[in-house]
């Protein structure tokens, strides 16, 4: 490191990055870039960045759309329902089975998560409307997939533009059949990112699952004093399972998972739990607030990445319950501590001091920082695809050092920041992965866990540590330079 401090280098990097833009765009982007300080009370949001605003046109944003937020995130993992991508063929195809929302079930018979149901709009559907086609789609799904427990209609862009009334169509069909049919107006052009899609999807859960009183199979569950629901865990690589086990071990009963490996029934019976446990605040705070207001269920945020945060969260959760749960919570912590110590002792020396830059969505840009720091790694940059002010406020408490903060970062900026700050690891999504690997930088996808995981909970932390070591200490990064190249030559 040169004579400049990390913070100075970060501030210089932000200034440098903005120079490439035309004036109007530079002015806009300046508000989304900043440097956050862990002790800086003057900052309203981490780095004082602005967020949840329209993306600057013409840049390579990593953001997705409202449809992605609803179909891809909130509704898609609900396993016993069929989710129709309603509109042209592309959206459903590009979002098919890419998120690793793990589930147990017989796909195509009683569960449908990795499949792609599309109404495959043609020009005539655009011209004459697609409501009749939608009814036909619903009928055909019920005929060929009789064990589905409901159908959601995930609107793609044209639906809202051509004046189709999916709400009326769905309502009529639901009335005829008694089935749960959920129309979701999550057209991709709504809002500025995935985020509005989460909100819209949450609202439809409220309207059609809570207020709709859906028919569900089997007996209803008798409530207990220890019932909780996991909210905002999409069971990527099995994350919710490696979380659930800890909650059960401390004497709680996990009645529902939202929405990884979820069923309609689990969601419907969540209104009777004692406490909602919210992992991804961004995508499911809406329904948590609604349950608090409507059903008096408190909710707390927790973080199961890395032992420090996991322990803190377990205690926070236990504090809501009686001494029995609290005692068991301590037993759980004590039980796993030797394993955590062994993992940390093994991997920390191999990872100590390595610097990391993150760019992810949802909760991860702040939630995973602790897990890296538990391994002695230093997060020096982070940002969200689709966060709001409240996320950046929460981020202030999670950073350990001066951290460059970039909201809705685009390809150009992220590349420039990485070149300027030279981290040892970049952790982001598939679109950016190979850019940085080409530069010879170790990289981990932090949306899909790079086809590994789970990363939640104690067992997940061990995998996380092993994967980070794998990435950073792999011999492959040493091969980029050919033996005939002289020093300093790329």
């Amino acid at each position: 490191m040169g004579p400049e401090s990390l913070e100075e280098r970060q501030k210089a990097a932000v200034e440098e990055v903005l120079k490439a833009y035309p004036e109007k765009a530079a002015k806009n982007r300046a508000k989304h870039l900043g440097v956050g300080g862990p002790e800086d009370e003057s900052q309203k949001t981490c780095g004082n960045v602005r967020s949840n605003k329209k993306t600057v046109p013409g840049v390579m944003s990593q953001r997705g759309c409202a449809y992605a937020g609803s179909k891809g995130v909130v509704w898609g993992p609900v396993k016993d329902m069929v989710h129709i991508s309603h509109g042209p063929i592309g959206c459903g195809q590009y979002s098919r089975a890419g998120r690793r929302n793990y589930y147990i079930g017989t796909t195509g018979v009683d569960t449908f998560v990795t499949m792609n149901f599309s109404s495959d709009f043609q020009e005539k559907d655009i011209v004459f409307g697609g409501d009749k086609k939608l009814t036909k789609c619903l009928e055909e799904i019920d005929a060929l997939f009789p064990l589905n427990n409901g159908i959601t209609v995930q609107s793609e862009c044209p639906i809202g533009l051509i004046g189709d009334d999916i709400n009326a169509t769905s309502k009529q069909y639901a009335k005829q059949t008694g089935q749960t049919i959920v129309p979701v107006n999550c057209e991709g052009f709504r809002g500025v990112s995935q985020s509005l899609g989460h909100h819209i999807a949450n609202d439809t859960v409220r309207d059609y699952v809570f207020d709709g009183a859906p028919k569900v199979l089997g007996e209803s569950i008798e409530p207990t004093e220890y019932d909780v629901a996991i909210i905002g865990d999409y069971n990527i690589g099995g994350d919710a399972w490696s979380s659930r086990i800890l909650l059960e071990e401390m004497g709680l009963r996990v009645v529902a998972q939202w929405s990884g490996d979820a069923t309609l029934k689990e969601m419907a019976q969540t209104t009777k739990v004692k406490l909602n446990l919210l992992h991804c605040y961004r995508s499911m705070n809406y329904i948590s607030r609604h349950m608090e207001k409507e059903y008096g269920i408190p909710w707390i945020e927790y973080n199961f990445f890395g032992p420090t945060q996991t322990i803190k969260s377990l205690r926070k959760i236990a504090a809501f319950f009686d001494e029995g749960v609290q005692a068991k919570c301590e037993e759980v912590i004590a039980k796993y501590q030797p394993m955590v110590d062994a993992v940390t002792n093994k991997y920390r020396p191999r990872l100590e001091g390595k610097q990391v830059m993150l760019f992810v969505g949802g909760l991860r840009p702040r939630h995973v920082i602790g897990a890296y720091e538990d391994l002695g790694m230093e997060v020096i940059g982070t940002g969200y695809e689709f966060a709001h002010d409240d996320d950046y406020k929460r981020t202030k408490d999670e950073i350990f050092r001066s951290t460059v903060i970039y909201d809705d970062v685009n390809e150009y900026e992220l590349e420039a920041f990485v070149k300027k700050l030279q981290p040892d690891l970049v952790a982001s999504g598939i679109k950016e992965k190979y850019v940085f690997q080409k530069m010879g930088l170790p990289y981990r996808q932090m949306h899909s866990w790079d086809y590994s995981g789970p990363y939640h909970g104690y067992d997940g932390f061990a995998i996380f540590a092993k994967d980070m070591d794998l990435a950073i200490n792999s011999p492959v990064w040493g091969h980029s330079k050919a033996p005939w190249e002289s020093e300093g030559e790329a």
Partner: protein
Amino acid sequence: MQEVENIVNGQKLFLREEYQEVLENKKQFEGGMGAINPEKVEEVAEWTKSWDYREKNLAREAITVNPAKACQPLGAVMVALGFENTMPYVHGSHGCVAYFRSYFTRHFKEPTPCVSDSMTEDAAVFGGLSNMKDGLKNCAALYKPEMIAVSTTCMAEVIGDDLFAFAEAAKEEDGGEFLPEGYPITYAHTPSFTGSHITGYDNMMHGIMSQLTEGKKGEKNGKINIIPGFETYIGSIRSVKAIVEAFGAEYTMLGDHADQWDMPAGDYKMFAGGTPIEAAKDCINAEATISLQKYSTVKTMKMVQKRWKHAGGFSNPIGLKGTDEFVMKLAELTGKEVPQKLKIERGRLVDAMQDSYPYMHGKKFAIWGDPDFLIGMVSFLLEMGAEPTHVLCNNPGRGWEEEMRALLDTSPAAADCHVWAGKDLWHMRSLLFTQPVDFMIGNSYGKELMRDTGTPLIYVGFPIFDRHHLHRYSISGYDGGLNLLTWITNKVLDQLDEETKDIASTDYFFDVVR
């Protein structure tokens, strides 16, 4: 609990007793039929294998289940990345672009540059003009492409934005700062509700070729244009080039994305390779234009043949016969003998086919993919004596079904060969249960069919997300034929080993020499 010396990821972690208990315990809260009544699930699962289910399934009119096609702008993005220093620019919502980039990146394991102008609700109401004005300027300023190739999402198409007028307005407003007069902004309307990704390929290729060549018609340049089509095999583009070069012919590969999706490690540059813009501007003056994918270049080739009056036409160099035709077409266009190099290559492929034929002969195959891919692949299967039992195309163009039928009718097993035009992979599932085959050839979506029906899958097609580096190879030309032969034959042999490896029961047939 994890053991530090043997940390396992989800694959094995969840098989452990403590997790099996967790999963079992969870069932009491689930209302899925698997948790309530597993016998019922089995009963329905069995029914989905029946002829009764097949008939209902094939009678579907509205819902598409597990399609084997994508939408137009995906193809437009591929075209743009085939031109030197060209940024694909999608006029519409950025969600679409995130999808295109992820989709290609997962297949190629390479970065896929592409921008959008991030249209939202206000653009839906007032049109996307201001997005385009800002977007083109920002794109040019940040990424400094030599050309911007604009395509559209369905949102922009539904509201009816006028790309030509918008691009002109953007230049005017910019006043030449970032978008100077003459800066190439090519465009194509690519509505997702018409055709598929190959239609988008056609539209963008037509857009670039027609717009870059405006006013450029002049002396013939003596070259041959080659249009690869929606080609997802990098090696295929290189094989085709090698064949043309063997003739010593001057040529322009129009839309050459081979280097873009095959960048060496070391440093990252946003763009690599591609058709030089100057060469593209001159493509109107070529002697001939050969399209390697008929159904991906319908509109483009209509322009080339009817208006430009180029010789050439279509040639599909997959398989022996396809490559022979391509080679003979080049011989005719260049007036040259077939070069010795190609004669030897052909001989080697035929030699290999004659070495391996017993293993593919008579084997039944199910195959799906884009229309031209299928014509080439089925032709190759027939050359090997295989039986293409189910040939399924979700996005057939006009005339494809007839062409495929005519091709299958050349097979001695023609009566058992079926063409499924406009059908999807959930249809294929029924076909595989009711009229089973020995092997499937297709993309990663075939994986679920493999799981459900037990039919071994040979990965050839697009997209391939869960097998690495296949796209780097060629499936075109004689060398590509050899790759296909190797992959298919060895999968047949793997399967044979799989079926004969049981000790003291089937392993008398577990031969070391095959």
